[in-house]
């Protein structure tokens, strides 16, 4: 077990190193000159060269990479050329917003998907099952940006239930109106997750309910409810955990569009803004942060698997 964990940790470090290298190269090999962005297109070549020197952009690319990596490992992601805000403070401001969105949406998603899957799996091909399976299949073809446009049209413009784009209020300023503005984007994000969790859990449960140990439990006279929650749901929780891990990783990125549309200043909003301003360090920092979060999350979930099911470690 310890050896397995060590091996996985080494792989994690390796992957993180490659990811950091990938991001650095990506940002640096792409066209776009930061000196033009900072000084404007009409400045002299001399001023440009001075600035390049100041920013350390005239050093060989490998030196630049290791300087950057060294700083990153010390928790210093650099300072934006444009806003003069440190990238870490940008992240500290933006990430809690994404976290809030994801937590609310996942609570809603699991709260809807699990009972619905259980109810559907009780009678496969029953009315509820057919309706929910068909609906969820259709929902797969509804990307969040379509849902959000119509959600805004219906709930903000017509019925004024939720505030429209651009009405974000920080949680610390007013928790109630903050939650009020976050409900709509969270629900939109939740829909996609409900579909994934429901489809997965329903299929899993139907298979599990045909197993012998369920027949055994039934013949012992255990109640259906007890069998469902204690016997059937348990093995399925593994695959649900896996799906949740993959899905949450995707949500960090998926939340970007929803944030951008509703002008919620989360990571996606910050990233698109810094891309538009050719703000190298901010783009690098945010991308690296998201990648690290996703990689570490997957690592933790892999690890949880080996705890729940020790056979995996022995492979």
């Amino acid at each position, binding site marked *: 077990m310890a050896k397995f964990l060590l091996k996985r940790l080494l792989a994690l470090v390796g992957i993180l190193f490659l*990811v950091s290298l990938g991001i650095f190269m990506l940002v640096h090999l792409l066209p776009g000159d930061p000196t033009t962005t900072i000084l404007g297109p009409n400045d002299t070549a001399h001023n440009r060269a001075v600035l390049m020197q100041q920013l350390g952009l005239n050093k060989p690319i490998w030196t630049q990479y290791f300087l950057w990596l060294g700083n990153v490992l010390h928790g210093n992601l650099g300072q934006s050329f444009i806003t003069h805000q440190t990238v870490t403070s940008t992240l500290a401001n933006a990430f809690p917003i994404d976290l809030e969105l994801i937590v609310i949406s996942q609570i809603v998603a699991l709260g809807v998907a699990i009972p619905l899957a259980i109810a559907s799996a009780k009678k496969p091909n029953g009315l509820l099952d057919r309706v929910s399976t068909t609906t969820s299949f259709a929902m797969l073809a509804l*990307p969040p940006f379509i849902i959000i446009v119509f959600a805004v049209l219906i709930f903000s413009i017509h019925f004024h239930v939720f505030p429209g784009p651009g009405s974000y209020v920080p949680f610390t300023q007013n928790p109630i109106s903050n939650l009020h503005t976050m409900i709509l984007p969270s629900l939109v994000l939740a829909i996609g997750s409900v579909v994934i969790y429901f489809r997965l859990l329903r299929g899993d449960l139907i298979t599990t309910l045909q197993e012998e140990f369920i027949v055994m439990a039934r013949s012992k006279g255990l109640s259906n409810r007890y069998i469902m929650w204690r016997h059937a749901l348990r093995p399925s929780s593994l695959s649900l955990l896996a799906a949740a891990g993959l899905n949450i990783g995707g949500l960090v990125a998926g939340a970007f569009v929803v944030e951008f549309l509703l002008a919620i200043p989360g990571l996606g909003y910050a990233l698109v803004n810094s891309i538009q301003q050719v703000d190298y360090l901010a783009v690098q920092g945010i991308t690296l942060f998201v990648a690290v979060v*996703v*990689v570490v999350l997957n690592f933790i979930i892999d690890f949880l698997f080996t705890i729940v099911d020790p056979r995996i470690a022995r492979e």
Partner: protein
Amino acid sequence: MSSTTDAAPTSESLAGTPAAPKEKSALGKIFWISIIWIGLVFLLAIVASWIGLDDPNNGNFALINSSPSWSHPFGTDDLGRDILSRVIYGARVSLIVGFGAMAIGMGLGGTLGMIAAYRRGAVDTLVSAASYVMLAFPALVAVIAIVAFWGHDIWKITIIVGIASTPLVYRVVRAATLSYATREFVTAAKAQGATDTRILTRELLPNVLPTIISYFLIGVATVIILEGALAFLGLSVPAPTASWGNMINESRTYLSDNPWLALFPSMAMFLFLIALNLVGDVLRQSFDVQESKL
């Protein structure tokens, strides 16, 4: 990692339940309707310039944000452009980006996946490791960054998204090939002195092809959604070119005045995506791809 991929999100499907024979024929009907619909979208996108549609990029300023009428069945947008015409021309972008990117992904990832699964050894280890690193990257973030810096014309978007899809395609094709690479018919072909190229193209490819086709269609659907997401960040094909994503994005400003502007491109995208998913799903079911081997 292998344990997490077992739970592919779309593992269950419409046809997943043990269905009565009667229902199977109903599903077949929907399957064929989907195929016809996909074909129709293709046809319209190809012949768009010759079927007497209004100019998709130049509108009639006297008639802006109008509701559907006989001369403009889907209404007009904020610049007086015919929405029907823009929806049909917009299909070109979704089709080129969707099918183009997946063709690139399949060409690169599929070839590498087959070779890695057939050869194993160092090639497999190296390419598989690279694919894990690429998968660790949140694809949307990477695509946004590259598109933003490199430029967003339709071909660049296609290439970038195509390359971004490569690691996922690689894993799927590799897994599918692995289950055949050690089978007797491959050994037999080797014993008869068949070249590697021949084994890959004549023995393995026909077996892996069903998997490739069904994942291809579902991949196309994913890429079309990605194009939409890029459009919302202002990173899809530049204006005034119509794309479904661009149109839905532009509609946001006029939502209360002109909901038609949002409705028709959304419907077009939704119906096309659902048709792709359905056909992909039915194909996958009928060829019985074992997801547990991924």
